[in-house]
């Protein structure tokens, strides 16, 4: 039975975590653990894929662990199979990458025990079929990833990141706890079957939805709950960052989808605008922050925030269409969301691995210490180029295919009966288009500054190509980006069982279309063929190159750069991370990010240096988190006095609280 097999995979990973504690001092420990983790992840991928492509039968099982009267309910349906594929595939490729990358870890003992356990916990979240198992796996996933974030615990920044992450994770789990409490109701049926059967008032449904947005949204990185993400994801070792950004955010999405689309039952249409607006705002703010960030891994983490926003916007669209009984349109938006989630796993993992390769080769994460890596690390540079093209939603790669589907579902909005949604959705579509365009700018900046141009430091000048395991893992993901881009129909057909299991509707079978064209609604309405676009570009590029070389000239001569006659040998004169972002910082950053430029010129006649500084304030941190932190600090200071009382006063305190409580109870009844 597939579900037991998947549970065994998860269990093997947990056991591997235990073994890693014993093994951690062994010189070949990291190779062994990562190689061993690849196997169950690979098997889980196969289980997930057979669940999607093959039988499509839902299998359940109850394990005699957990709460004595409940046990651990596990279930593998099409939706769980899809997310199991994401976790398994992401985990397998990342573990393979880590066989090479993990060798450079100075303290492998701080990573190895947590890593397989983290993977196993993510699988368990996807398999869980009762609230207790779900929350327990979720919390194990949070705590183990917290341990992984703390790997380089001697750096102050890492400790700060881990602390913020811990607080936010606790907050998220608390919201989920309350949400499941409301879902289970007074009788306390914690198995998902019982929850699905329960009836709820609209007020309860709204409260559950809000709690799910807080709980799952804070894990996924929805604005304004994203503050921990750009701190914690980059602080971990790069293969863990790849897992956290590429896979763990998808598990958070799974939690949201499972509860809101499956367990909760029908949801009123007026909650969907909140999800759509939140998603679109997250997309724009996330990518704008990525554009300003000069730490390569932080910029990638902010781009994760953007992609999560895009996916949430698509999920909001699906909610809106479903509430108005438009199953085909809902299936389109939902397919787009799942497709984008899969794509994001592929390219974000690839990019974090690329960042890890750069970090290994140069020891630098700051863009302004890099440059010219395309000469020193040609294979990595090429693979990362595929990743940045895919994530910038450019045809013919996979990022475009899913964004295209999202835009197609935006164009279905006029058929909605609600005028407010008809007006709101195109505006949100405009925001998504802005986010996509800004993403292209952000990734031109990251790639252009880090990989192109001239080296800005000695470390970048002497960088060498990374090991074969890392390159193989990155190649696999790059190939996935290309294949999902030119055969989007195959991916959509594979997702279709998960969509029809959740929404009772699906997109038309794409493999029936001539020439593997993507036809989401009707041929007269919109079509896209990634394969032909790829083929045409390849043909016309090679034909024109051949014609030019054959009939015109093929001579080439190397000379110093022209640079309008004033070439400067100092690499500092190149455009760097800050200067590239300057135009967009002025245009959008002053309002949305509160950034401010300051130029101090020496008075005329003096030869002192001029100074240029950029000040940026995190408006969300200042507006929401700082006041809360201050209030908590102030309250703690006040209550601090209670720790230093005499025994007499403590007794008095206990006595008075008891009397007070009893009084309240009497008045209550």
């Amino acid at each position, binding site marked *: 039975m597939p579900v037991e097999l998947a549970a065994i995979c998860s269990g093997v990973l947990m056991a591997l975590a235990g073994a890693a504690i014993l093994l951690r001092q062994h010189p070949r420990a990291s190779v062994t653990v990562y190689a061993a983790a690849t196997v169950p992840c690979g098997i889980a991928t196969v289980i997930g894929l057979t669940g999607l492509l093959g039988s499509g039968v839902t299998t359940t099982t109850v394990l005699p662990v957990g709460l004595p009267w409940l046990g651990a309910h596990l279930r593998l349906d099409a939706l769980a199979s899809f997310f199991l594929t994401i976790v398994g595939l992401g985990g397998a490729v990342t573990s393979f990458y880590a066989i090479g990358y993990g060798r450079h870890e100075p303290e492998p003992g701080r990573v190895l025990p947590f890593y397989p356990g983290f993977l196993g916990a993510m699988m368990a979240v996807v398999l869980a079929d009762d609230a207790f198992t779900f929350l327990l796996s979720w919390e194990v996933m949070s705590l183990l990833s917290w341990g992984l974030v703390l790997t380089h615990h001697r750096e102050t920044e890492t400790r700060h990141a881990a602390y913020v992450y811990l607080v936010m994770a606790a907050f998220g789990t608390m919201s989920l706890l309350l949400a499941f409490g409301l879902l289970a109701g007074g009788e306390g049926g914690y198995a998902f079957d019982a929850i699905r059967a329960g009836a709820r008032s609209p007020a309860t449904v709204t409260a559950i939805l809000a709690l799910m947005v807080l709980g799952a949204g804070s894990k996924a990185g929805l604005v304004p709950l994203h503050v921990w993400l750009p701190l914690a994801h980059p602080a971990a070792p790069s293969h863990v960052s790849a897992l956290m950004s590429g896979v763990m955010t998808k598990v958070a999405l799974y939690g949201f989808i499972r509860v809101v689309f499956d367990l909760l039952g029908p949801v009123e249409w007026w909650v969907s605008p909140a999800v759509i607006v939140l998603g679109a705002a997250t997309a724009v703010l996330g990518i704008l922050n990525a554009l300003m960030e000069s730490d390569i891994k932080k910029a990638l983490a902010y781009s994760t925030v953007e992609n999560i926003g895009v996916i949430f916007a698509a999920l909001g669209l699906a909610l809106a269409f479903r509430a108005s009984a438009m199953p085909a349109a809902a299936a389109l938006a939902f397919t787009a969301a799942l497709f984008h989630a899969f794509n994001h796993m592929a390219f974000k993992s690839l990019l974090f691995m690329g960042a890890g390769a750069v970090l290994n080769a140069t020891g630098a994460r700051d863009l302004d210490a890099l440059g010219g890596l395309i000469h020193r690390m040609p294979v990595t540079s090429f693979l990362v180029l595929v990743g940045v093209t895919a994530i910038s939603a450019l045809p013919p790669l996979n990022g475009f295919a899913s964004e295209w589907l999202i835009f197609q579902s935006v164009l279905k909005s006029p058929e909605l009966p609600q005028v407010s949604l008809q*007006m709101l959705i195109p505006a949100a579509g*405009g925001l998504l288009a802005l986010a996509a365009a800004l993403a292209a700018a952000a990734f031109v900046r990251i790639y*252009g500054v880090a990989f192109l141009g001239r080296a800005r430091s000695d470390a970048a000048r002497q960088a060498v190509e990374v090991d074969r395991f890392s390159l193989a893992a990155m190649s696999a993901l790059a190939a996935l980006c290309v294949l999902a881009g030119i055969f989007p129909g195959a991916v959509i057909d594979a997702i279709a069982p998960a969509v029809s299991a959740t929404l009772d509707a699906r997109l038309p079978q794409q493999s029936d279309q001539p020439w593997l064209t993507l036809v989401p609604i009707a041929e007269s309405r919109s079509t896209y063929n990634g394969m032909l676009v790829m083929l045409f570009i390849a043909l016309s590029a090679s034909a024109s190159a051949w014609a030019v070389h054959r009939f015109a000239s093929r001579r080439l001569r190397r000379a110093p750069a022209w640079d309008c006659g004033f070439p400067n040998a100092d690499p500092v004169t*190149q*455009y760097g991370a800050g200067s590239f*972002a300057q135009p967009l910082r002025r245009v959008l950053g002053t309002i949305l990010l509160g950034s401010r430029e300051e130029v101090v010129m020496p008075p005329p006649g003096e030869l002192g240096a001029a100074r240029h500084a950029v000040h940026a304030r995190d408006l969300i941190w200042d507006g929401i988190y700082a006041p809360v932190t201050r209030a908590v600090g102030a309250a703690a200071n006040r209550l601090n006095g209670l720790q230093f009382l005499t025994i007499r006063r403590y007794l008095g305190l206990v006595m008075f609280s008891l009397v007070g409580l009893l009084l309240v109870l009497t008045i209550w009844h």
Partner: protein
Amino acid sequence: MALIANLLIQGAQMLLVVAVAPLLVGLVRKVKARLTRRRGAPLIQPYRDLARLMRKDVVLAENASWLFRAVPYLVFAATWVAAALVPTFATGLHFSWTADLIAIVALLASARFFLALAGMDVGTSFGGIGSSREMMIASMAEPAMLLTVFAMALVAGSTQLSTVSQFVASPDVGLRVSLAMALVALIVVAIAENARIPVDNPATHLELTMVHEAMVLEYSGRHLAMIELAAALKLVLYLSLITCVFVPWGIAAGDAGALSYVTGLLIYLGKLTVGGVALAVFETSIAKMRVFRVPDFLGAALMLGLLGTLLLFVSRGL
């Protein structure tokens, strides 16, 4: 038979856009010269320039990578594929279903993405300034373009260009305020995307006012020729796009006879001439704006696109 005819039309159209592109650039330059009381270079000067560049050596900067050498062909190919998918003189293109309007916009974005990367490749300050400003302009222009696409698609119920074109050509459309707004927005976007005055100046040699030209400053010889041809092709693409959506009259339908193809071709060339002259007149009558005024200019397009879309819902059927 129909298949062969369709393939022929598709092939003819692909060759036509490349062949006519330098002529359109020559026409705009000539009209601009005449308007400023200069004689101007002959209409075929762009062809001569391209031929001269093709024959010359490529002078490559010492630290240019393989990307720098591949980009001119990639940019040309992506622009050409996009241009081949826009109906020019006939709608029944064999491969028109390969990409809809959103995909065509994204293909142009791909071309720009790689060109901006090439601008960063040599590691000079001018390449960087060009790339950075180009991406700033693009990140304003692209959403405006997509909102315009939304407005058109909502009117026609499709993002397929041939369907939109046939719908607008049908008599039951009439005048629509939304379409007028979309037209203005599309023209603004087209001006920005093609690096024309007032956003950018294709003829400038004053370094600090260049955007597109700064980005391709290090290119020479056949590489530069490919990039210039791609830029000319993009201008043809935008003019074809505007004419096929907003003045689709005269475009031959998919199954029309040979005569209507010929008249369609003549009408198309006439439309291009009108568009080129209008562009030249507009460019001569306006001054280039500062770089940080461009977002306001494009923001207006963005707002028009959005208003055009919203107005559709307020004034259903007006």
